[in-house]
């Protein structure tokens, strides 16, 4: 059981809704993943300021909690405005806050992120900030009112998997009581299992599922890997050793050395 703000969830997989071959495939993937939270982009799925009503209706019909995001926003002001639109459209105080600092790498602009997080938290939003693995930024976000952090493990959509395991480890160690959700850069189930084994609380995926040959099957694979990674963390992972340790004693048997 994981608690984010005042909501308890059992599935540790959060799923994005962009880029699927069709809404029907998206719906299959959501079912297969057993996710309880989907994210939806307000800007990417709209044009001319008018919301994509029919698509949003399909998202609502998925029956999960909806975490709207501010994907595509490049300034704090834009992100705050988009968050407010999202609150109207989806009637939720949740917002996945994304402020992009570089159009090419989609790195978060952490300065604008902290600024927007403070404004939105003060206005009663429950902010899920998409951030880097920088500890000082993480502290500033918590000071600004965030009670969940969503660090990347690699650039958005890159499918590269965890690029800096020691940074992720120290983040976990520094914030033992803050729900940490790895938000971007996961490419395959083994990546998700890796960060879950480190003790991260959940994983948010989009492209890795949407861009797979069979998104529903991949969603199911991820769900199992995330579950396996979590169980490994809770069970206590055996750390690597420098030499072989036989699982059955060798005393009394022939030894070749």
């Amino acid at each position, binding site marked *: 059981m994981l608690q984010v703000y005042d909501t308890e969830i059992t599935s540790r997989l959060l799923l994005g809704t962009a880029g699927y*071959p*069709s*809404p*029907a*495939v998206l*719906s299959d993937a959501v079912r297969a993943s057993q996710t309880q939270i989907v994210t939806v982009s307000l800007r*990417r*799925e*709209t*044009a*001319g300021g*008018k*919301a*994509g*009503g*029919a*698509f949003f209706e*399909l998202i609502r019909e998925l029956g999960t909690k909806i975490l709207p995001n501010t994907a595509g926003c490049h300034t704090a002001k834009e992100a705050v405005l988009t968050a407010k639109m999202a609150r109207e459209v989806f009637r939720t105080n949740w917002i996945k806050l994304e402020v992009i600092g570089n159009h090419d790498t989609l790195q978060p602009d952490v300065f604008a992120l902290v600024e927007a997080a403070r404004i939105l938290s003060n206005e009663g939003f429950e902010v899920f900030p998409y951030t880097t693995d920088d500890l000082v930024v993480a502290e500033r976000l918590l000071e600004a009112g965030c009670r969940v952090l969503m660090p990347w493990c690699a650039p958005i*959509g890159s499918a590269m998997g965890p690029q800096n395991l020691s940074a992720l480890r120290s983040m976990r160690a520094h914030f033992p009581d803050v729900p940490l959700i790895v938000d971007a850069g996961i490419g395959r189930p083994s990546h998700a299992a890796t960060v879950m084994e480190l003790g991260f609380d959940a994983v948010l995926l989009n492209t890795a599922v949407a*861009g797979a*040959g069979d998104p529903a099957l991949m969603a199911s694979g991820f769900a199992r890997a995330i579950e396996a990674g979590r169980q490994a963390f809770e069970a206590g992972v055996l750390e690597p050793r420098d030499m072989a340790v036989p699982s059955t004693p060798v005393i009394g048997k022939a030894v070749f050395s």
Partner: protein
Amino acid sequence: MVLQRRPGNGSNGCQMRPVLIKGAGVVGLVTAYELARRGIEVDVVEQAQHIGAGASWFAGGMLAPWCERESADEKVERVGAAAIEWWKAALPGKVAQEGTLVVAAARDTRELDRFATRTTGHRWLDAEEIAELEPDLAGRFARALYFPREAHLDPREALSSLGDTLMAMGVRFHFGQATDATVSHRFDWRIDCSGRARLPDDAALRGVRGEMLYLRTGDIQLSRPVRFLHPRHPLYVVPRRQGLFMVGATMIESETCGPIAARSLMELLNAAYALHPAFGEAEITETGTGVRPAYPDNLPRITRSGSTFCVNGLYRHGFLLSPALAHDVAECLLSPNHQSEFHDEA
């Protein structure tokens, strides 16, 4: 589907009564053609003053079933392959079967590998082979995927000639008429091909906005559609006559028809410029927006209610799928036991 009776036919095999088609976009026109050539009398009502006033007018006109398979259902590939032959037969000389070239920038070549694993009907080209096919792209790409069986047409020219052909076949057009109220008593069957106009009446239907633009330049020549893969902004460039290039197209979950967004324009132009710098010097002769109607699985449906058939949800595959749908509708009207692949019982 199974129709219980032979329409308009009673028991004594009398002639089929006239059919009314609503909508003169690609679906309406192709359906009119399939009916007219079976000897059925057809009237077409269209709310605009000319044919192709909807999304069809802004289409790319690529007949690319193998490329589309990257994200589309297997049915699109199978049915689409036959569409190439249909268009060649219906509009002799208007269809170019030069294949499709798929390229990616050096840093995105993994997108090409991914595209290759999702599709069939292609072969790899090296830099020299690319230069042979498209001399103006020489030296720009080390590898490309080539889909030799694919074809393309100019949608505006195709719709106009199909309209002329239909008039010559005796099909009557009624422009500026949104409904068939004035003429409805004469028809036994109505076929609603009104596309986006059906959005308010069909809860399962949604609009997917597409934005495109036309560039004109004499500095570069292409003989076939080129798809430029990019992780975020894939784009295609389809050559037209007289130095025109259609550049498309965005896919946005929205039913808004308004002018192209600045961001979309930037992304399309940026990608076109990356494909070849000559596009940076081109004139922008037109930008356009179309709303493509789609069902949740992005596959088309034929629905029947009483004596009306609705053909809708062709998504981004209007030219590719309308021949098969039109054939299905025509067979549904004529053969009591026709099994339609697209009929939706719901």
